[in-house]
């Protein structure tokens, strides 16, 4: 009995730093942001502490709602494309021999050694007038003059997919790696055609991986506004763009805080719906 209590106390002491850390660096800023979002801006840079709903009502302006819609659309499009590209990649990667699996994994990790912004500048070199892609198209005889590929919506989508596809690949891979091939063979033995065996056995068993891939793709894609800035020439206005502009240019911190709160609420809502729909308490690769 006494020993038990003592070990509980030791355990509490051991986790205390984590609690304090969370309190100071997660709960604290969140609470600060929430409080800020109900304040009023004042002067060039400051805020005034009197309660107002103005910031939230202001989000109701059609143009700001359109921004949320734009962000959602881009996030969905990105997630769909990432799944289409990432799933087969991860699935077949898990089927490779261990030696090649490792090589693939290294190739996937290497790009992360460079800053993501520099990789985006690489895409600018690809997309710009008389850039790599333009030359290739002209060389192939598909076009006869430089195109305006950079600063367009498709360029933004390419950048988003490029930035996020590795996360889907990792998640699917970790699921597919655990897949017991015996089950697939059994299905085949019992007469299921290849496609049928995949759809009824392999796909459901790798769904947890897809699920965590979806979460890992969707949530960041709601916030990766700088890709739209750089590859979209600032013309694709996302919520992230708006928040950054409110902070750095308009200097309306309370409104920026309100936008962040709504964005976070929206993302949490999607996460909640996803969990409800899939009945999955845990996410493969995330926990």
């Amino acid at each position, binding site marked *: 009995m006494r020993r038990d209590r003592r070990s509980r106390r030791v355990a509490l002491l051991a986790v205390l730093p984590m609690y304090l850390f969370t309190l100071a660096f997660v709960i604290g800023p969140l609470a600060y942001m929430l409080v800020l979002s109900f304040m009023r801006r004042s002067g060039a840079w400051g805020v005034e502490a009197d309660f107002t709903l103005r910031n939230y009502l202001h989000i109701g302006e059609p143009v700001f709602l359109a921004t949320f819609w734009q962000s959602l659309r881009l996030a969905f499009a990105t997630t769909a494309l990432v799944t289409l590209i990432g799933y087969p990649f991860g699935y077949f990667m898990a089927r490779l021999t261990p030696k090649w699996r490792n090589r693939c994994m290294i190739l996937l990790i290497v790009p992360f050694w460079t800053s993501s912004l520099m990789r985006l500048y690489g895409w600018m070199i690809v997309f710009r007038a008389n850039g790599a892609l333009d030359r290739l198209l002209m060389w192939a005889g598909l076009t006869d003059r430089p195109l305006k590929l950079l600063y367009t919506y498709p360029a933004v989508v390419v950048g988003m997919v490029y930035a996020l596809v590795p996360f889907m690949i990792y998640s699917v891979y970790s699921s597919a790696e655990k897949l017991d091939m015996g089950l697939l063979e059994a299905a085949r033995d019992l007469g299921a055609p290849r496609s049928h065996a995949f759809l009824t056995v392999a796909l459901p068993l790798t769904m947890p991986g897809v699920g965590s891939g979806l979460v890992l793709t969707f949530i960041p894609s709601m916030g990766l506004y700088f890709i739209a800035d750089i590859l979209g020439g600032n013309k694709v206005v996302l919520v992230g763009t708006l928040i*950054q502009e409110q902070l750095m240019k308009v200097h309306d911190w309370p409104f920026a805080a309100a936008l962040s709160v709504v964005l976070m609420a929206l993302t949490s809502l999607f996460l909640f719906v996803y969990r409800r729909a899939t009945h999955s308490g845990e996410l493969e690769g995330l926990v």
Partner: protein
Amino acid sequence: MKTQKKRNRGTAALLLLSLFLVAGCGGAPAADPTTAAAATTAAATTEAATEAAAESTTSSAAAATSAAASTTTAAAASATTTAATEAPASTAAASALADPALTGTQLNLYTWEGMFPQDILDGFTAETGIRINYVNFDYDETMLSKLETAQGGDYDLVIADDYIIETVIAEGLAQKLDTAKLKNYANIDPAYQKQFYDPNDEYTVPYGAGVQTIVYDPSAVGIEITGYADLWDPALANNLGLIGNFRVINGMALKVLGESYNTEDLGIIRAAGQKLLELAPNIRLIKDDQLEADLLSGEIGAGVMYTSQVFSAVVENPELRVVFPKEGIGFGVMAGFIPSKAPNAGAAYAFLDYILDAARGADCFLYLGYYSTNRAANEFIDVSLKDLLILPEGFNVNMEMIQNISDEATAEHDLVWTEFKTATGQN
């Protein structure tokens, strides 16, 4: 204007670096992945990326940065040497100002990065024995909050933008200048004095002016551009680049409607917004950094840009045409002031006097790429660059400065701006 100079160089370094990486097939040394992650989240701004880049690939980054720096200033430097050799006489006088009491002290200079050529900074220390502690900020607002925290102390000399200086003076964070201590004070071009931020000319010394101008490539644009109204011409479809400053861009539409930049009438701002929506089909790109690179590479045929960008673009391609819009021009001034409790105000006076010298002033503006606010310096500026660094006589008849306006008007501008940007995305 603000941080253009600095950011330009940052992005130039980034571009160069990415080129290195593409050419070298990813032979980049390993970086701490958390650095990259931090960059992803925090770094919408290029500065953060530059830092991350510098951290991750230290050796090549340093090389690239210095390479980029030297290319941007190369043109200016070559011009400077010719100007300097023409006029060795004027510098001799300044050495007399070396005050023995200040020798060995320190000047705490607070401004953006890259505001002075290294020669000027080194020269000052050599001549006066005053060390320079160069502290830089990214945004005027950062400077203001630091200065508020320090209650006007810590720094001896601050150089910042006009609108923020108005706030600094209103908050009592600047001290009145004793112009008798500045022998070269008379060199200042009076056209840049007594502006809204310092109407009685008591606190500030202007250091460079910027105007937003239209610059275009006649070979890529089918029409002649003389004012803002021409930018609405359908001939410019998907061919126009703008800086991302909402007061400047909304101000363009205000000017076309014959209104003031600083109107607080929400109806007029709204009307300007409607006018701006008609411009959307012509917009190819909106960005603050490196807009001139897109003009030089042909991504855009025309652009509305900051002075330093126009300067680098035209130095690179003299065929480009610079237009002072006939509807009137907007301009901003950067100015130096001494904080109210500056620990070493004497050093600040010495430095101000040092850069107000005619020949050294010319060196500074060539380096900076902003319009000269030093009348005596103008004759030291190379003939070929005079048009780019000296505003024409009488420019201030048809000009207006962008000032702080009410929160309501700012919010309306922001709304109009977001609507405009959203509309450009529908192209």
